[in-house]
């Protein structure tokens, strides 16, 4: 009974979390202010006159003007993607801070993703082969069963372990109650 209850609680918690996330996901785009949208677009574009800064971060005059253009275009109803496209058509791909999802530069994105998926596959195969080795191994088959052992011998070993634990850490030497 207890087992099932803990499972139910666990599922309930998971359900609560995912419903909150789903809810925020549904409402979040609508709540963005114009400032946030300008910042989002500007941080995708590279400041052409500075060293490794985005248009959003750069204090240069050119970037200031570009932020103005972004704001105007967003206000006139263009989408974020359209504004970025506008700058790409004027300056070329070099204005982008991340490689575009097309042509050769698609590789920049696909290689890490492919490597990650390949890694997961490899991990899965390695784990499976390890596990199948384990299943085949006859010695391991009955390891969960209790091994026949002389009770006296067992008691001796248990005492030995207790002594060594006590020498290791004072907590083990005190007689204690069962936890949980």
């Amino acid at each position: 009974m207890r087992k099932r209850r803990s499972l139910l609680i666990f599922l309930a918690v998971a359900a609560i979390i995912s419903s909150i996330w789903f809810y925020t996901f549904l409402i979040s785009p609508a709540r963005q202010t114009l400032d946030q949208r300008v910042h989002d677009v500007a941080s995708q574009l590279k400041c052409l006159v500075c060293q490794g800064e985005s248009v959003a971060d750069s204090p240069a005059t050119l970037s200031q003007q570009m932020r103005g253009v972004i704001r105007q275009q967003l206000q006139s109803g263009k989408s974020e993607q359209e504004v970025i496209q506008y700058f790409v058509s004027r300056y070329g791909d070099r204005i982008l801070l991340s490689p575009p999802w097309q042509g050769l530069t698609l590789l920049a994105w696909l290689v890490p993703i492919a490597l990650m998926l390949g890694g997961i596959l490899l991990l899965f195969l390695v784990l499976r082969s390890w596990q199948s080795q384990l299943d085949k191994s006859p010695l391991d088959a009955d390891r969960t069963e209790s091994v026949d052992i002389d009770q006296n011998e067992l008691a001796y070993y248990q005492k030995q372990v207790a002594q060594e634990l006590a020498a290791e850490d004072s907590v083990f030497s005190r007689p204690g109650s069962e936890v949980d």
Partner: protein
Amino acid sequence: MYFSDIGIISLILALGFAVFTMVVATLGATRELPQLVASAKRSVLTVAFFLILASAALIASFLTHDFGVSYVAQHSNLAMPWYYTASAFYGGQEGSLLYWALMLSIFSAIFVFTAKRAPTVLVPYVMATLMGIETFLLIVLTTVSNPFVRLPVPLADGVGLNPLLMDPGMLIHPPMLLMGYMSFSVPFAFAVAAMITGKLDSEWLRSIRGWMLAAWSIQTLGLVLGAWWAYHVLGWGGYWGWDPVENAALLPWLTATAFLHSSMVQERRGMLKVWNLSLVIASFALSIFGTFEVRSGIINSVHSFAYSAIGAYFLAFLVIVIVFSIGLFIFRLPKLQPEQEFDSVISREGSFLFNNLLLVGAMFATLWGTIFPLISNAVRHETLTVGPPFYNQVDGPIFIVLILAMGIGPLLAWRHTSTRALRRNLGIPALAAAICAAVLPLLGIRDIWANIAFAVCSFSAGAILYEMWRGVRVRHRHGEPYLFALYMLFERYRQRYGGYLVHLGLVMLAVGIIGSHFFQVQQDAVLKPGQKMDVAGYKLVYFGNIDRTYPDVEILTAQLQVWHDGQLQQYIYPGRQLYARFANQPTSLISITTYGLTDLYVFLANWNGPSEATIRVFVNPLVPLVWLGGIVMLLGGIICWWPQRRKRSIPDRVGAGVVLGGEGTLASPPSLSNDNKEATT
């Protein structure tokens, strides 16, 4: 005779002794002549002595303003304060290489002094490898990159240090990071020695883990200091820009972190030997790659003051290192069979493998992004940027999954965990995550990704704190007061609880990064005296500019009042420094004031006469947690690393060695806690 002459002579002698050590140590090991090994040890100490002498000579040249030395003339001048003059030692390429060689020789000397702790067969090969690396550095130092080269005619005054480097951060960040890069040499030397001798047992593992932990801690400190420096000096309101050079420093850190985890699997279960060796080699190769990348200037970076021609030497060295390691690897592969088999996917081993997949995946993604502009340039002849949006989208999710795994992994027992125990352990952390996910929207945080990221962080923090609490509770029930129980946990199970502390620090760091990434508020304004600007609950009132001129530098600051909660908080003075010799490179004096966990970051972007200023303000929530998290991580690393008292020898019967083997499943006494039964029976 100049100090620089002493320097050159010392370098040449050090080179001679380094080569001598390699030969003698190898001979001593192969012919089994202990006298030769002893001689090699002394020779390592001699190399360290001569490098200390050479470094002292360079510092003396700097402090005596010997502008006849080209390096001194280029990196210092008479007006610089003595501490920046001394730190100019590593301010340029030649000096930073000398610093690297010096640190390597000192670490080698430390290794020689503690050689008793390392397996005896390995010692000569470790020394030979270390001195091989040292030989490479010394060849570069005595030929193409000699810091002691004299000018035909001494200058009256030097050029001076790049103004960006004239900052208190300069005194500590470059030496730490260079030391971090260097410190991966020692684990590498252990890996080479193990591959040559075939000795990869637990003794070897203990030694290499200790050195790797030290390297990891130094590199962590170097990275955090680098972020701190960028935040305080560069003026764009951030601390990590995914700059190629920053990435280069992160790469070996990622593989080192992966090694520290997967080596525990080897320690406990005798598996993953090949994998661990490759991680050690990769860490070293990546640190050489980082140096190559910084020095060659093949990739655009904010660290561009370090360009030079020695990139090719490092590339050649990198190729040698990789070919040599792979050759050894193939030679040794037949001997690297696992001792034990795998039991279950849901186990500590399984989670470590997953952890390794994520860390190495993040490493590859970052490396790929760093070198992709080169590939694109070669194929399409178009310069292309791979900037922060790329890394945020690729590495961001990986790190979030990593933090989630960090919460679950330590709760899993070795070999196999029952789902029941797992559910019970995960209940409290899952509850923490749910509360966090539910409370955030109520506080006005609508961003879905921020919500997910924060919930994952609270899950992991919950898991770690709950685990600590359970340990403390068990000890408390046995009569220890709570605080003492906590202390005893850290004292007795250093690796385990030090590890938890590192994880906790990483969660804090992640919370800081998430907070400042999603909720940074930025505003620019051109202000006249009396005008004010409002940013996210902070009001700034501008009064005017103050201009102070010193012989060497002009400092211009804007005076502003900060108002918050209807009260005057304080006056701030963001400004600019203009060094006479570097008039076109004004450095920033950024004003950062911390209110609770929020930074008010004010930057003087531009000015016009005494009464107009362009002010750029960032409100950076949670950034202090980044620094705090970094300190906690470092502390945890040191606790893990701190040498444990030697255990009294226990007769190795009943496999007691397995139960008592250092860190692991003994957070609570196995006989007292159900959770660990699977692990110990």
